[in-house]
């Protein structure tokens, strides 16, 4: 009940009382470009669920921007989505993306197209491969910590998502997914995976600590 009141106050009465973009709380930060898909309602619902289910506190208002904005650049989590529009990063943007990722930032690249091989999907992969190498995008194994940061995914469920990633410093620093956000409001596991990815951005490999392993192994069939 206490929690419910808190969510009500946060989301409906006070709104976002933090006037500053930089906050220790999780904020949904989305890369803005011509032809992007804001999906504000879906984001709001995911954040609502995140706060309802977990102890994570969020800044309610998502931030849309690009790498020219100082505040955007200071967010450790960046969501990039698209459908039919190709992505092309400029040289300065490329430099900043590398800097952001190597400093610990996480990018979630989500294809919102229903079709295989959308212009967004092909172009964005090409752009990231130009930054991190031609074979840098690799499938995320079902044992990856992303599938256990909060919700526990059985291997067969994890495999269905066909997540891919670019690994930097031993962690998945860029995650490639398909229709994750737009399905999160409709499908249980999509929402759960999105919550896991948000949790991963905040806790990194915490669930790989030795203390958790016996419990996790026992719960995985």
């Amino acid at each position, binding site marked *: 009940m*206490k*929690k419910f009141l808190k969510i009500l106050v946060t989301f409906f009465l006070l709104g976002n009382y933090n006037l*500053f973009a930089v*906050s220790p709380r999780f904020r949904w930060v989305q890369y803005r470009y011509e032809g992007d898909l804001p999906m504000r309602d879906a984001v709001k619902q995911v954040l609502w669920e995140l706060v309802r289910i*977990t102890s994570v*506190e969020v800044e309610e208002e998502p931030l849309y921007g690009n790498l020219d904005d100082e505040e955007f650049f200071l967010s*450790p989590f960046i969501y990039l989505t698209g459908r039919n529009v190709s992505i092309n990063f400029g040289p300065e943007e490329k430099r900043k993306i590398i800097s952001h990722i190597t400093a*610990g930032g996480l990018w979630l690249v989500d294809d919102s197209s229903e079709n295989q091989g959308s212009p967004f999907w092909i172009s964005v992969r090409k752009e990231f491969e130009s930054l991190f190498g031609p074979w840098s995008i690799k499938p995320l194994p079902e044992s990856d910590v992303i599938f256990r940061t909060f919700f526990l995914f059985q291997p067969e469920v994890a495999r269905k998502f066909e997540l891919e990633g670019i690994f930097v410093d031993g962690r998945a620093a860029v995650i490639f997914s398909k229709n994750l956000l737009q399905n999160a409001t409709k499908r249980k596991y999509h929402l759960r995976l999105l919550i896991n990815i948000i949790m991963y951005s905040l*806790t*990194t490999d915490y669930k790989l600590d030795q203390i958790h392993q016996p419990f996790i192994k026992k719960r995985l069939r």
Partner: protein
Amino acid sequence: MKFLEITPFKIVFLSILFILFFIFSVRSLHKAEKRWQKVLLMSLRCTGFILFSAAFLRISSLQKTVSEAKGKVAIVIDTSGSMFTGEGGGAINQIKKRLHEFLKDLSSGGKEVDIFTLDEKISPSTLENLLSLENSDRETKIVDSLGEFLKKMETDYDGLVLFSDGIDNSEKSLEFLKENEIPINTVKMPPPSGKDIWIDKVEFPVVAFKKVPFSIKVVIKSEGISGVGRVKIYLNGDLRTNEEIYIKKEITVVKEFTIDEEGSYILYIALSPLQGELTDKNNYFTGYFRVIRDKIRVLQVVGTPTWDVRFLRRFLKKNISVELISFMILRTRDDYMFFSNNELSLIPFPAREIFVEAIDTFDAVIFQNFNYAPYGPVDFLVNLKRVVQKGKTGFIMLGGDRAFYKGEYSNTPVEEIVPVRFIDVPEPYVYGEFKVKLTKAGEIHPITSFLKEFVQRLPPLHTLNLDIQPKKDSLVLANDTKGHPVIITGESEKGRCVVIATDSLWEWYFSSLLKNGGEVYTKLMQNILNWVTEDPYFKEISVVETREKLIISVREKNLKECKKCKMDLKFLTPDGKIAGEKSTEIEGELVLRKEEIPAPSIVSIQKGKSRINYPLKGKENLEFKNFKEKGKLLERIADLSGGRYFEFEQFKPQKAKFLSRKNRMESWKEVKEMWTSSVFIFLFFGVIMIEWTLRRKWGMR
């Protein structure tokens, strides 16, 4: 013939004089009519000059004398501790009784005898001195001291006779005896015998790790005696084990210890003596070891995942000196609960395991925006307070919306140990732009002094906790521009705590990493970690030992150099008894000369609540460790040097082997300085007069 005063100055003087004399002589001879006259006069003058030169250089006649000396023999008697141990005052008394007889025999054999004593070195002595010796604690170093002795004295003696029990603690080998020319005759004295117990062997690590258990194994042996005894183990003067044991032929005592403080340690083991023991000097053992820290074991307890949590974890995980144990509250009781356990990767928060069972094992505990109340009784915090106040664990508390007052820590043990009070204010946690600046204390404090050159360029923090108020004895290192404290340090009894009143410190990390920096956050957090865990660099008292001195440096609480610091010094014996003490007021540094402190001992230095015990190493005395001859040593010495080996009862000086060389003593004796003789004076003046007469006769001036 020899010139007694032939110096370079005189040679130069005579050379110049001769040149002048020759020039004038040649010039004055031009009036002589005939050549033979010139030659005669010149010869006479030269003769005169030679005689003058001889007198000037004090020519003397010397006589060579040759004499023959008696052959010399060195008697070397072992006077180390073992020779005084045993029935009837030990083996030394048997030698004393027969020494006169030996000396007489050697003298009658035409040998001159010198007496030497042997313990850690060979020293000249006399018969009287030797007979008056009553006791000794000294070690025997037969091989080492023989080597030194032969290097210096080999040519002086025709042979050596060495009386010893063969118990030796030397480090060198007998190799040098292969080049030795004089025979060493060895006389084996019976070793000490009787009932005895002793500490035969002690096994312990030379380096132990802080908070990691290690074992000390003591092997006690006995011969001809048994009974109930006691073994006591002291670490830096503190009695850590006092155990009753039944002493039989061999008994092993193994004890496990855990040490919480880094530093040097003196291990002292005492075995209570039993009645009728041969000696109790082998009932004690002294050893030295160091305690270092392996890794800093850090417990990070997190109330809710935030970016501050993420970057602190990143710093701790990347730090190779840290062993991190994290617990994050990912779901509270207020959150939606209707999932089965198998759907979640969560584990119950192990409050009991952390705060009761394992709390002693952590070097630092970090509460990061963590509200303890839902997870356990306040008793858990009592345990945290206990380990912090004992100096076992440092404590760091980071801010956020569920820390400090909002974390319900008012009037809890946590409030007692941290350097702040938790206060109820209308806005306990605020958003804004808070530019940080260092206080005067912060500018010199080792945690933050490095920030001086960066602080202006650091981005502002975006959150601040206002629900804290620094305590009187705390040290505020950094404020925001409005004076709200941001970094506060303090001490609670022996422990150290740091409070950081924000959960935005990650911005310094992430923003500087983006700009290829990163050193500010990592250095600050490393300093905080080192300070709370009392890394030796951050201690108020430090000791540096040189060959001759102990240099004690004392600093203020903020680690600034201490001016007029009151300090108490105690000199403790290895079993913790006070051997001396003094209080002194020093400025920064105190130098103690090691020779003025008896070793082994522990120098206990106390300044206020800070204290360190520094062990001063003494030399280990192995003499009484065991009374067994080292591998037929005396037989080997005799064999290698060409001497003979005797059991004491069978020894007769006549049977010993010596060189038969006779020393020819050649010396030169001065007989007379020739210029003082009448012949020399007559000759000199005769030559001058003849030259003068001839010159006058031939009409020359």
